[in-house]
Every structure is written in C-alpha cells, then in structure tokens.
C-alpha cells in the first residue's frame, strides 16, 4: 500500500503563546533569571506540540532540571576560563600593546571553538528529547569533528568575503544531518556542496548594485548613483529572505530518511511579510505600552504633588516630590516591563508566525517507509545544553 505524502498542520495560537510567554517571562524576571530553564522547557513543549506532521504533534520531553544541571556543570568549567583567562589576557594586552582590544580579540577567538562545541551539544540534547509518533530523534556523538569543520568553514567563509557562505551552510548541515537519527533510521543530506550557491543570488545582486552605485557616485562625483546603492540595499535585504526560504527548500529536499524524504516550500514573500507586519505590530504595541506607563507615572506624580501641573513640567528635576527609592523602583519596573514585553511580542509576532509558515510548508514524502522504523535507546546526556545556555548563543530552537 502507498500512503499520500504527509502534510504538516500547525496548531499554535497567538493568544495562548502570549499568555505562556508572558507568564514564564515574568517568572524569569522575578527569579533573577533562575526560572529561565523552566521557561525554555515550557516554551519548547508548546512550539513542538504545535507542529503536527501527518496530524500528530512533535513532543519535547526535556526537563528543566536537566537543563539546570547542565548549566551548573558549564558554570563550574567555564567560570575558570572566563574569569582567569580574561584577567590574564587583559594584563598582557595592556602590558604589551597598551590597549584592551587584543585582549577582547584573543578572548573571543578562544571562545569560538567552545561556541561550536556548545552548538553541537545543544543540538544533540534537543534531538534526543524530541519525539514524533512516540519515536525519539537522536544525534550521534561527534562534536570534535564538528568543531574543527565549523572552524575551518567559517575561516574559509571569512577569507572569501562571504562568497562561500552557502558552501559552509551546506557542509555543516550535512555533518549534522548525516549523524541525525529518527528511531533506528539514519538521515542523509544529499544535494552536493555547491547546491545552495544559487539560493544566495539575490543577495549578491543587491551587493553588486550597492558596490556599483557607490563606485559610480564617488568616481564620477554624481550623487544620483547613490539611489542605485539604496535600491541595492533593499534588494539585498529581500534577497536574504529569499535565501532563508530557498536554502531551507533545497536542504529539505536533500534530506533522506531511508526511502522517505522531505519537501518544503516556504515563500520569501511570506517571510518578508512576517517581518514587516511583526515589526509594525511590535512597535505599535510597545509604543502604546510606554505611553500607558508614562500616563500612569504622570497620574502618580499629580497625586503626590498636585502643584506639579500648575508649575509646569520642564525636566526631571521638577519632579522632586518623588522620593529617590520610588523613582528607582519606577525606573526598574518600566525597564523590565518594556524588556519583558519586547521578548513576548517577538515570540507572538515573529517566531511563531515564522514557525507556522515553515511547518505548514513541510511535507513528508513516501511515508510508508516510516512504518519499519523502530525505537532508539534513550540518550542520557546529562550535560543537556548547559554550555549553550551559559554562552550567549542566541536561541536556535
């Protein structure tokens, strides 16, 4: 028997995500960041369960306590490096070079391999704690090979002024995918080293347009050419959205899981739309929030010191009626409120619509091959993603 290709439903809702993100985000602020492991776990459970290939949700089975232990482990090891090495570097930097820049540069370079290490380990943890149809995903151990390959390909990318970025993307994706399992079945990334080059074409066109525009403007002293450069900037920005969609499409098409495969058709226009509408919505709501806070503070002032209105409001010195601790408290509340809402709104208006679009464009080809797949043993992997959490890696969910 042959099944139809499986399409993917998306069950995430803005309102539910808003509540969850606000609640867990507020708890994280109140606990000075300690709750963030629970926040991450709960957000992931939601995001995973929203993605439903063939109508059945993904499940994230990670536990916050695992992440806490992993984080503590990373702190034990990394704090020595970060504390002592940075201090010694700063000393030599000022002794030998009379400047702090070399210390920052060396310190950053020393961290680069640890970033790649953390990245691979985090991927391993996340896959080991992801299930679909009750079957675990997994990533083979192989972090050494990843660290040197990633260092090499990043170096190549830098040396070629970014021209080989698509090759780097493909090579690293292939290294990870070829070690990824669904149950007992190994994934394979096909397509070839150069297969993503064309996905970058609009970025290059945009960059070429900028270079040509700036070149003509300076060479011929005709500022009119700067318009071409500005157009090139817009073109490159749209080109990045095209790259995001097209590279995902090509990489998905190249992924094989035995006889089964993937197909994805995200659209660049939609990605641009999500960013534009998201940015508009976020700035509108944040502006309203700040305005509301200011009105509230103004009312408070008027209550404390009714003369403030007749006296006029020139600068903050005219608000002397407010005791210093209250001003500090208000400032902190405003700071954290804006920060918190910024994070929450980004989830609701950018991350989730993006996840929805990519998920809904994803199909599983020839799903009968999945029927033969068996469970894989649990990967205990006690360190979880501690290193990734301790270093500011950004959240690659």
């Amino acid at each position: 028997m042959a099944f139809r290709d499986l399409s993917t439903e998306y069950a995430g809702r803005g309102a539910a995500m808003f509540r969850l993100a606000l609640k867990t985000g507020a708890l994280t602020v109140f606990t000075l960041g300690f709750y963030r492991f629970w926040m991450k776990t709960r957000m992931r459970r939601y995001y995973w369960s929203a993605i439903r290939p063939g109508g059945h949700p993904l499940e994230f089975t990670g536990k916050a306590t695992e992440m806490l232990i992993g984080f503590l482990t990373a702190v034990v090891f990394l704090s020595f490096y970060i504390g002592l090495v940075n201090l010694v570097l700063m000393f030599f930097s000022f002794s030998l070079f009379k400047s702090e820049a070399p210390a920052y540069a060396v310190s950053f370079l020393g961290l680069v391999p640890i970033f790649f290490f953390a990245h691979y380990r985090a991927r391993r943890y996340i896959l080991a704690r992801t299930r679909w149809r009750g079957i675990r995903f997994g990533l083979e151990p192989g972090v050494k090979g990843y660290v040197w390959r990633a260092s090499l390909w990043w170096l190549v990318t830098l040396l070629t002024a970014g021209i080989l970025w698509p090759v780097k993307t493909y090579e690293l994706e292939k290294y990870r995918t070829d070690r990824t399992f669904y149950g007992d079945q190994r994934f394979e990334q096909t397509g070839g080293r150069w297969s993503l080059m064309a996905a970058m074409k609009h970025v290059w066109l945009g960059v070429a347009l900028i270079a040509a525009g700036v070149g003509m403007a300076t060479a011929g002293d005709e500022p009119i050419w700067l318009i071409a450069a500005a157009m090139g900037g817009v073109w490159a920005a749209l080109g990045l959205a095209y790259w995001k969609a097209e590279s995902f499409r090509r990489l998905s098409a190249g992924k094989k899981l035995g006889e089964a495969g993937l197909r994805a058709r995200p659209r660049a226009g939609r990605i641009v739309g999500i960013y534009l509408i998201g940015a508009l919505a976020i700035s509108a709501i944040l502006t309203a929030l700040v305005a509301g806070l200011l009105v509230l503070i103004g009312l408070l002032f008027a209550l404390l010191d009714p003369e403030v209105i007749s006296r006029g409001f020139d600068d903050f010195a005219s608000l002397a009626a407010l005791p210093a601790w209250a001003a500090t408290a208000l400032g902190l509340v405003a700071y954290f409120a804006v920060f918190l809402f910024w994070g929450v709104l980004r989830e609701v208006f950018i991350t989730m619509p993006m996840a929805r679009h990519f998920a809904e464009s994803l199909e599983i080809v020839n799903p009968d091959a999945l029927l033969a797949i068996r469970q894989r043993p649990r990967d205990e992997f006690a360190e979880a993603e501690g290193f990734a959490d301790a270093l500011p890696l950004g959240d690659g969910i």
Partner: protein
Amino acid sequence: MTVATALAAFADFLGGERAVVERVEIVLAPDRLTIHRPDGKSLHWLAADLRELPDQADRTALVLTHPGDPLARLMVADKEIVARLRANAPALHRRPPLENKRRILGWGLGALASVALIIFVLVPVMANQLAAYLPPSGEKALGDATYERIRAALGDNMLPVEVCEAPEGRAALAAMAARLNAGPDLPYAVDIAVLDHDLVNAFAMPGGRVVIFRGLLEEAANPDEVAAVLAHELGHVANRDPTRDALRLAGSVGVLGLIFGDFAGGTVVLMLANQLINAQYSQSAEAGADDYAHARLTEAGLPPAALGTFFERLRDEYGDAEGLAAHFSTHPQMTARIEAARAAQEAAERAGRTGTPALDAGQWRALRAICGAVVDAPVAGKALGGKKAGG
C-alpha cells in the same frame, strides 16, 4: 453527572516501539480508561494514574500518559471523553517527582564554590599580583581608556564632559599638588584634571590620573578640604588600587554574565552584582587611601581633620550609608572615617605639625573659578577646618 455510564470512542495510540500510529478503541469507566489495541491486547489505565502532557498547543484534544509506561501516548480527540477526563481525572496535572535532587544539589554547590573561589579569591589575588607587574605605560593606557569612558558617560547630548582649563585655576591646583609632594611615592607623573560636572566626587584612575568634579570644589568649605580629598585620591594611585580594580573587573564581569545569562538584558543585574562585590573589596582600599592621606597631609603641615570635616558635612547633607545601602557603598561608613581623621589631627597637633592653609585666598578663588563659573566662595580666611576638629 453521567459518570456511571461507560463511554467509548476511537483514539490514536503510540506504543513507543515503532513509528506507527495505532487506531484504538478506548472505553472510559468511572475508575479507569481501557485501551483496546489492534493486536488484541488491552491496557487498563486507572483514573488516578492518568497524566496530561503539559503546555500542549492543541487544547481541544488531550495527550495522555501513564507513569507505568513512560513511552506510551494516547491522543484523545473525542469531545465528551476529553471533557469528562478534564473534569474527573484526579491527578491529570500532577507533576512527576523531582529526579536527581542530589545531583542538582551537588553541582549547585560545586558551581557556587567555583564561582566564589574565582570571584572572591583567585581574581582578587591575581589582580593584586599582576597590578604590581603592569608596566607604567600599560597602566597609563588603561587609565586613559577609563578616563575617556567616564567623560563620555557623564556627558550630555553625546558630548563628553568639558575639562576645566582656566590657567589660574590650574596653577592653584599645581601648587596644591606640589605642597602634598606625592611624587616620590609614584612611578609616574600625576595628572590632575577638573571636570565640569555637578557630582560631589573625585576619582583616581590607573596610571596616575586623578579627576575632581566641579561639584566637589563648590561643596568644599576651604582649600584644605580639597587638599585632603586630593591626598586621599593620591593614596589610591600610590597603592595602585584603580589598576587592581580594572583587572578585577576584567575577570569578574564575564563570570557574572555567565551566571545571569542574557536575562533581561542582564546589564542592570550585572551592574548591581558587580557593585556588591566591589564594595567588599574597596572598603579596605578606602581605609588605606585615608591612612596615606593623613600621613601626607601631616607631612605637608596641613590638617588631616579636613578630610573629616568634609565627610561630616556630606553626612549631614546626604546621611550615612548604613544597613543595606552600606553594602552597595564603596566607602567605609563615614562616621568611622571622621573618627580616624580626628585621631590623625590630634597626633599631628601633638607633633606640632600645623602650617598655613593649602592655598591663599587668591589661589582658592582661582581654583573655584577653574570651570569659568563664578561661585560665591565662603571666606577663605575661615579655612582652618582643623580648629573645629581639634576643639
């Protein structure tokens, strides 16, 4: 309630062995949920054992698990069964017991110990050792970087704070520095600048840079008080405290960033935590600089009590830092410092080391006008703070 009747429906079951979704018949009785699997076997899940997967996006359906079979999942979409389970299953949202308590505790203590070791022992010890080996030119570079940063941070509208350069004022300042004669103790020339800012404060920076704010010149009642503050800052320079601080900061800020993560931008918490740590270190550094100042002032025939009278006025105006605030304050409690200044004054008077004020009336006026602003100076003749303290 219709709990007594059994309800039946179809649902999706995942056994956790193969990537196959089983279509099963489920029967809900008051005390249990029976699952009839296609291979003929049946599972009986007691109502008290049913758990719902938390934080699911699709709230209309229910994903059930059972503590006895951690891999199995039952996905129930039937509205009536879902509603009845939500209303009646007694432990649907009970959390699994916390595992690994010991490991969490162990690693937690380990992390605390290693961070404490690094921030409170290794980093300060290394900073103290290395500060002595940093060549003077390196120290100067460190100081210049800090100086520009402070000017930029206190500036308005992106412009750094102005440096006050009135020639007569600079001459008065130079005369005061010459009188204190700290030169022989220092590996580099001292570079004293007045910044045009209201802060009642003065800073020492690595490499012999000392900064006095206009606000302090205005707050001081007489030149001896300014000389006392200057001597205190020179004490920091002689003890290389700013260099130690800068090296220590390089070590501890990264570690703190590690702990708090990118929580809420991190900066506010980071700054508070760093302030708390620094306050612990600096109390002894401040006392050391005070001692140095008392010695230098006595040597120069200036009243050490001037440091005390100045603090006394600050305390009357701004209050002492007691309690919680004291932890955040980098200076030892003022009362203690005033006492110390008085004791030094008595010792100086016994030794007969009292001389003329640090500046004459004309110099004092020039110093106060160094930023161009003409301020109403208290009469310079009343400048003997020592009398007050001694009497």
